[in-house]
């Protein structure tokens, strides 16, 4: 199963409410047959720009990331569901690259070429 990461920005709320939102999200993932790997709190910070969502303009938010394995079919449904959630300001699902990028960096590539030529 491919590996995804869900980065969410939640409204700046009290601790029990934030916990409730996270619980709701993870339960949604479980319902759709995802295997949650980890849930990280990236801190509550000031947003880089004011985000207006669900009839409110927010300046502060809590950043969270959920690492999970899931089938590709559920990604669009999940995003749909999160967009409708009032407390979530910006949900994004990103595919996780576990492989290293192909090829080498400029210096190493050039050295190899020189060696091949000589």
């Amino acid at each position: 199963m491919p590996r995804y990461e869900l980065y969410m920005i939640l409204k700046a709320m009290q601790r029990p409410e934030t916990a409730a939102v996270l619980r709701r999200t993870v339960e949604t993932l479980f319902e759709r047959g995802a295997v949650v790997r980890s849930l990280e709190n990236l801190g509550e910070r000031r947003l880089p720009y004011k985000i207006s969502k669900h009839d409110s303009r927010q300046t502060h938010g809590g950043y969270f990331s959920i690492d999970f394995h899931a089938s590709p079919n559920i990604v669009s449904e999940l995003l749909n569901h999160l967009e409708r959630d009032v407390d979530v300001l910006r949900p994004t699902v990103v595919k996780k690259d576990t492989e290293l990028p192909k090829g080498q960096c400029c210096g190493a590539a050039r050295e190899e070429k020189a060696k091949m030529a000589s």
Partner: protein
Amino acid sequence: MFVLSVSRLLVQALPKQPVLPRASAQCVRSLTTSQQDPASKDDMPIKMENPYKQPAKTCILCNVTVDFKNVQLLSQFISPHSGRIYGRHITGLCGRKQKEVTKAIKKSRSMGFMSVTLKDPLFIKDPEICGIKHVE
């Protein structure tokens, strides 16, 4: 007396050891072996790595992973006044890294990690990588 000194002089003049003809290395070699050894050829160039070799030219982000979460690193490649991404001729990055940085900046902007029109005030005092002079 005079005879003695003369004889002494003569003794000193005579060499104490018999003088053999000075045989140089090459002469000895020619006397002993007719063929030259392939291992000891003084004239042939010795194979070695180029002593004047310069270190491979690398860009500053060589072997550095560029991540959209690393807002501080990405902010070094944007203008502090307008938040615009600097071009390749200013950053001095290689093609691959410049593309990675641009993609990461756009990704982080859309995900709500990085600002679009300005540079985060926390990162304004960071060391300048790009060789650009701002009009004060």
